[in-house]
């Protein structure tokens, strides 16, 4: 049980995919050359195993077709334990490494590491950064210790911190507001069901007012049009998870569907996701869906689902080619990334690191 609680604390899978691609604006640290997402290659974050210090970033180069298993620089200073989230903003790649409690920054052009930002409080207690988003020249990260932090992208220093609920997870920004999911994860009174709102101009939270959402909120994602979509996981027992929408103008919450519960990405008015329904006897019922955010209908986007061997753990979409990326995992051994074309046919397969969970295209 000890193991379970520790896993619960630290093992939330990541999904927050490149939200900046659709929602961010150019900040004080603009890209040196115009970035065409999905033209060069894709970074794949391999979460690694719990307590194993084997998180890694693989890079798949579209131009040469080459797969580089470990990112430059991580051979001299490895990532650490539990890679949680990754995003590209401006000319840099940002990665949260949760158990190691730091944020790693890489230069997008040279792929070289720029800085390791250790995220500890004044008493040297790790804050454990979780999920990332970007807004107006800053990077924001939720931290397991009940805070959200602000990282200046020019100086690469933490210049703001604000308290939110317990065990925050997903994070999203829209219209001068930051939304943070208070999962309650492993707090004493079980999972919680709120989202904290922070004013980005003052970097103060609107507490005690919080938005009430489904139990155990997980991934938040802005569509850039005024809605924040979120998944919640329930209690993994009697209360199941689902998919909701927050209207940012009046903070009203609307239930949408029972799937996705975990991982999804938004692209052109659709939410793409995978869902794993487990039963006692382990036979996992895996579905891949495409949810029409306007029409509220579900269709499939992969025809070749049999190609995926293990349990899906990450999802990505190349906005340039419209190829879908699904990562799978058996939790202990290196996973695979399956690439499907826009028709849903498998076109490639990559052997990457352990627990591949996140994609960042550029």
């Amino acid at each position, binding site marked *: 049980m000890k193991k379970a609680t520790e896993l619960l604390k630290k093992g939330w899978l990541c999904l927050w995919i490149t939200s900046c691609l659709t929602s961010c604006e150019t900040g004080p640290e603009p890209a040196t050359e115009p970035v065409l997402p999905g033209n060069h290659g894709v970074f794949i974050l391999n979460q690694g195993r719990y307590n194993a210090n084997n998180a890694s970033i693989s890079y798949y180069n579209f131009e040469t077709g080459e797969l580089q298993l470990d990112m430059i620089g991580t051979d001299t200073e490895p990532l650490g334990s539990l890679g949680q989230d990754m995003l590209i903003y401006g000319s840099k790649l940002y990665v949260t*490494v949760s158990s190691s409690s730091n944020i790693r920054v890489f230069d997008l052009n040279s792929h070289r590491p720029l800085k390791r930002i250790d995220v*500890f409080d004044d008493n040297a207690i790790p804050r454990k950064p979780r999920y990332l988003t970007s807004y107006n020249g800053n990077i924001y990260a939720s931290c397991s210790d009940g805070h959200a932090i602000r990282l200046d992208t020019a100086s690469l220093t933490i210049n703001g911190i604000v308290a939110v609920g317990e065990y925050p997870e997903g994070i999203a920004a829209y219209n001068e507001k930051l939304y943070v999911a208070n999962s309650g994860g492993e707090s004493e009174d079980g999972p919680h069901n709120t989202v904290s709102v922070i004013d980005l101009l003052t970097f103060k939270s609107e507490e005690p007012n919080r938005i009430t959402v489904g139990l155990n909120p997980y991934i938040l994602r802005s569509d850039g049009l005024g809605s924040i979509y979120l998944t919640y996981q329930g209690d993994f027992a009697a209360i199941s998870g689902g998919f909701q929408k927050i209207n940012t103008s009046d903070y009203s919450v609307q239930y949408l569907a029972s799937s996705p519960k975990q991982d999804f990405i938004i692209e052109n008015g659709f939410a793409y996701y995978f869902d794993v329904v487990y039963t006692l006897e382990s036979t996992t019922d895996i579905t891949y869906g495409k949810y029409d955010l306007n029409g509220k209908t579900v269709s499939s986007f992969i025809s070749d689902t049999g190609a995926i061997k293990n349990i899906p753990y990450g999802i990505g979409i190349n906005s340039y080619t419209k190829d879908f990326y699904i990562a799978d995992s058996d939790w202990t051994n290196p996973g695979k990334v399956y690439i499907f074309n826009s028709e849903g046919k498998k076109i490639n397969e990559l052997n990457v690191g352990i627990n591949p969970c996140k994609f960042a295209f550029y």
Partner: protein
Amino acid sequence: MENRILLIFFCWTLVLQSSFAQEDTVKVRPLKEVEIRKTLSSPSYLSTAPTQTLSSEKLKKISVLQVSDALKYFPGIQVKDYGGVGGLKTVSIRSLGANYTAVVYDGLTVSDYQSGQIDLGRFSLDNVEQINLYIGENDIIFQPARNQALGGAIYITTQSSKLPANKKREIKASLQAGSWKMLNPTLLFRQTIGPTLSWNISGEYLNTEGNYPFILTYGQSNLRSKEKRNNSDVRNWKWETNGSGQFKNGGKLLFKTYYFHSNRGLPGAVIYYNPYSGERMSEQNIFSQAHYTQSFHDRFDFQANAKFNYSSVDYLADQGFSKQRYLYYQKEFYLSAALLYKQSKSLSFSFANDGIYGDFSSNLPNGVFPSRIHWISALAGKYEKSNFTLTVRMLNQWVFERLRIGQADKNFRRLSPYLGLSIQPLHNLPVRLRAFYKNTYRLPTFADRYYSSVPNPNLKPENANQYNLGFSIVSAFGERIPYISFSADAYYNKVKNKIVARPLNSMVIWSVQNFGKVDVRGIDLDLKMQMALNDRFSVEINGDYTYQNVQDKTPQSEYYGQHLPYTPRHTGSGLISFKMPWADCNYHWIYSGERYDNQSKQPSSWMKSYAEHGISLTKTLAWSRYRWNFSAECLNLSNEQYEVVKNYPMPGRSFRLGVKFIY
């Protein structure tokens, strides 16, 4: 004088063995010293399954503090060691997993309902007389049924309360001090009250800061940093008392109470760039047990055993920004009775029946308060001649499980046989062949069944079939080599319905399932030799080697046929001790070959081989009726940096000084 002490010591061990459930194997009769020595140091010679023994004398030579350290010197044993004095240490016999290892403390098994694994780090060696390892089964048919219900057993026998005939009372006191503020005082008092009654009491305190330094290597990079294993402090208290008495009707009674308290930090895995560690554990264990044995006529022996066990764990999960306390409680009531029928000198039959009630509770929000009634019966027969041993046993287990919350009553019955044979084909050639087959069920623990994130009450017991074929030679070559033995065993274990924790849709949601098959093939070699250079100098050599191939045989597994993680192909250990007039010097080492921490065999999952060397010097001084024993030890002489479990570094070079006083 020295010979007499030796003889007394051996006789006393015999008495101890025979007084506790082993009547049917050791023939107690006045023997010449060499003969006794033979019987004792090579019980494996006669047995149908591989057996190893470490006497208290040998335990001193290998400089060990905890039982788990001693077990590293047995072939076919893998000790999973999380490092330091307080780190968890579990023992797997021939890669079956720690749940197949029974730990028998002074005749009765130690239980754990939560994990099914016994932390052998908590048993200190100060008052231990002997440790036996039995792979498969031993040929003692007259003992509680549960002792033989698993794939192998470690018998820990503490000093009996009986004193040599010329002594009325004895006091032993010792003090050990060592690196990282290790301090370990012990006290033992034994007394004989009249011709039939005796008792003893022993106490022990162990304190260490345990914050040993280590070099952190960052993966395969060249990055290194000097770190300390913080939050590794240990404070243990142990009290034990034994009584033994003999009744007029010939019945013998042994009684024991044991109390253990431990408060320690759990340093956890080393995480790169994050040195924070705050987890704590406080553990308490108390048990009382009684053993009664009596003969009826010439043909029947009867024994009864009773035990009560209570243990609690107070675990503080600490991430710095959040602290949570988890409390776990277990208790057990255990009754056992056994009857031995001796048809003739060589043929005997026994029936043993154990009834056990155990329960588990906690402050966990999803606690279901499970309890279990376990009914184990064993019917056994043994035919033993000087050149032939045949042991047959049938074990029946009934398990009834109840939950206070929820209604998943779970009952099942399993039958498992044992068949063992040992034969000396030629009378004048000291070679003995042995073979055994054993079928074992490893029951799901309460944690397996009810405390995963998706509890699986349908979990079946895991099953293992063990096969062993081997031989042993015991001989002597004149005065110079009074004793030499060699044994070799080839084994094959087939495990099915393996109980494994499998994530369902993320690392968060996991369930325990019967999944997978494993084949274990291996060879164990063991050499023991004594050499006497002259009257004053002698040398003793022990060497062990294990080869094993542990394969994943799960159908459709991507890694079918591949080696399992954490199973080195080569392991070995050795001990050379020199007995000299001015002091005794011992040199010992253990070796483990390379292995992987997963099945992918990627460079990042590779773990390097290691060897740990140690040396010790001991000197005994006798003055009047007082004896003083001084020891100086150096462990991990070459300061090898290594890990048994990935990211749990082991201590580097350390020193210990000890003094022991016997009156």
